[in-house]
């Protein structure tokens, strides 16, 4: 079919049956999503009114961008829980720049570079010093967040006119935000599948030592995924910034957990090298749609978090059973 499929089935510890369940995993999530939407179509057609739907998707778009980045890192068998804090740092910095009359494109570029820099710190510590990513990013998560609190003292940043929706009318601005997020997703998905650097990510996540012997540079690849994630976090901060007239310095809390949850539900394994961004899109949409959908069906919003947790657990349990079947 394509090199990606071959590479995945060709790796010894997983059998062919395992590959079949993996393939179907993405379709399962897509099926559940379709089912949910079908139920909504019959019971609460109001859910599909274009404007509220577009607004909801726009609000979630920055999260999709971060999720794409975190998938890269997870494919390399690493994890990054500092993205939420980095997101807030980028958002506040960009907000301050914009309110100091720096043109928005320049400020956006600065945000991406700042994010990439934050990602590079994680990458250096993880790939350079070979430290465990969960602890490194735990430390940077606390550090960025507290630096921001120290510098900003919880003060909101007011944005000047003309920044919201890039100065466009609202609906067109919403389309731009959603389009940018989808462009990132498609670009990365195609890159992961068809570019050799994309295949490096899978190779390193599958077996770093084998990748090294094959002439790749696992440590540099790992470092690069952290930098890309950082850059995408900076971009997500800009996409979030243009949606409101103020920047909340406490924004981005729990962003890392939501991104990891979307990735896991979409079929990315924490043990690396497994999963595709299309599955992640389905998982992301499922998690994004479920709470408003349930609200339409009369479930009280304070059940949100419990249901999100339940979905993550369900996804990982299904995965566990599939893997067991595959191994037998």
């Amino acid at each position, binding site marked *: 079919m394509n090199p990606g499929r071959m590479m995945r089935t060709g790796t010894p510890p997983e059998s062919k049956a395992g590959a079949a369940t993996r393939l179907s995993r993405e379709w399962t999530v897509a099926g559940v999503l379709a089912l949910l939407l079908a139920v909504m179509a019959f019971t609460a057609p109001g859910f599909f009114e274009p404007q509220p739907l577009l607004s909801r998707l726009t609000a979630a778009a920055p999260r999709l961008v971060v999720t794409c980045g975190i998938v890269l890192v997870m494919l390399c068998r690493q994890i990054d829980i500092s993205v939420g804090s980095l997101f807030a740092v980028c958002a506040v910095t960009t907000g301050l720049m914009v309110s100091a009359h720096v043109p928005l494109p320049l400020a956006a570029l600065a945000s991406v570079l700042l994010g990439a820099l934050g990602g590079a710190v994680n990458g250096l510590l993880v790939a350079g010093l070979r430290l465990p990513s969960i*602890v490194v990013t735990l430390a940077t998560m*606390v550090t960025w967040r507290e630096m921001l609190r120290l510098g900003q003292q919880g003060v909101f940043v007011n944005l000047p006119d003309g920044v919201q929706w890039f100065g466009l009318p609202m609906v067109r601005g919403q389309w731009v935000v959603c389009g940018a997020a989808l462009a990132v997703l498609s670009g990365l998905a195609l890159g992961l599948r068809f570019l050799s650097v994309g295949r490096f990510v899978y190779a390193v996540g599958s077996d770093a030592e084998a990748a090294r012997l094959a002439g790749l540079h696992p440590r540099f690849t790992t470092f690069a995924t952290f930098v890309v994630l950082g850059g995408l976090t900076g971009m997500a901060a800009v996409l979030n910034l243009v949606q409101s007239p103020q920047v909340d310095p406490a924004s981005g809390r729990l962003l890392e957990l939501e991104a990891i949850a979307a990735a896991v539900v979409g079929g990315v394994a924490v043990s690396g090298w497994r999963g595709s961004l299309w599955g992640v899109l389905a998982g992301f949409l499922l998690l994004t749609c479920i709470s408003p959908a349930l609200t339409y069906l009369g479930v009280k919003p304070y059940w949100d978090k*419990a249901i999100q947790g339940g979905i993550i657990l369900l996804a990982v349990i299904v995965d*566990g059973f599939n*893997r067991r079947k595959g191994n037998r």
Partner: protein
Amino acid sequence: MKEPRALSSSRAPVGSGSARRPAFIALGRHEAILLCVVVLEVMFFTLAGRNFLTPDNLANLVRHSVEIGMLALVMLPVILTGGIDLSVGSLLGLCAVVFGKLWRDAGLPWELAAADTLVLGALAGGFNATLIAGLRLPPLIVTLGTYSLFRGLAEALTRGTDAFTGFPESFLFLGMGRWGGLPVQAWIFTGVAIVVAILVHRTTWGRSWRAIGFSPEGARHAGLPVAWRTASAYVLVGVVAALASLTWSARLGTAKADAGTGYELAAITAVVLGGTSIFGGVGSVAGTLLGVVAIAVLTNGLGRVPATLSLSGELSGLFTGVVLILALAGGAVARWWTELRAWRRNRG
């Protein structure tokens, strides 16, 4: 099949560099450094701060840090097995809410409600354990799910806003009273610390946690019931998280759904700062206690120095993060150095 491990990235060469040297010497070095840090902190805050080394302030320090301390102590066995538990803070919140509901809405006496809460903690820990040890799912993702689930249930039970107050004096004594001159929760904490220390360092049960973390396959071949022993670590976390929810509620005189937010990360930070390897197999109770004390003294002390009084929360968080990075980087450099020396010796 992958071993049950938080992250199955390639194992850091924990034992390889210092293979010829008994592990406790390397550990002792880390703990000694940490002890120096604590002593320096205490000296600094005694000189620079106001009323730092007074009985009242020390009691205050203890009261505010026992919950995170208890969670860190039981997080140690979990991390020793190579796992992680992100759900402890949320479980604390859920237990606090259930305790409040049992006491106020079900009309149980608080002692019975507290006992039920401990059972609930054990059940919730058992749920994590079933998924992690029974179904062999990755601990990071399972507890990420229960992190959301437990907090979500707590919010759903209280409809997001309800809080329980007006607890009887005898219950509040747990969090506000003194016994033998010390805050009551200091005794509870000491009890937990002694139990965990004996378990981890003096029983075959606890030693097997270390063995599992060091090499799950090896432990299995040595005939250890890996699943049961791993599961027991998570159940222990559940029970102690429930206990911590009781002291939390008694200290603040209220039980709410947001109890213990962020405690999981504080507990993990203390454990890792105490020299425990996140890959499992290496760590000690003494190191964890020192990690807890180092963070607690820093947080409290910064609030006692006039210059940092208003920023104590932010600064202590920032320092904790930076110190954690430095401790990790320092450990990595020390490991390199040991490896380099071993390599030179082997060559020459």
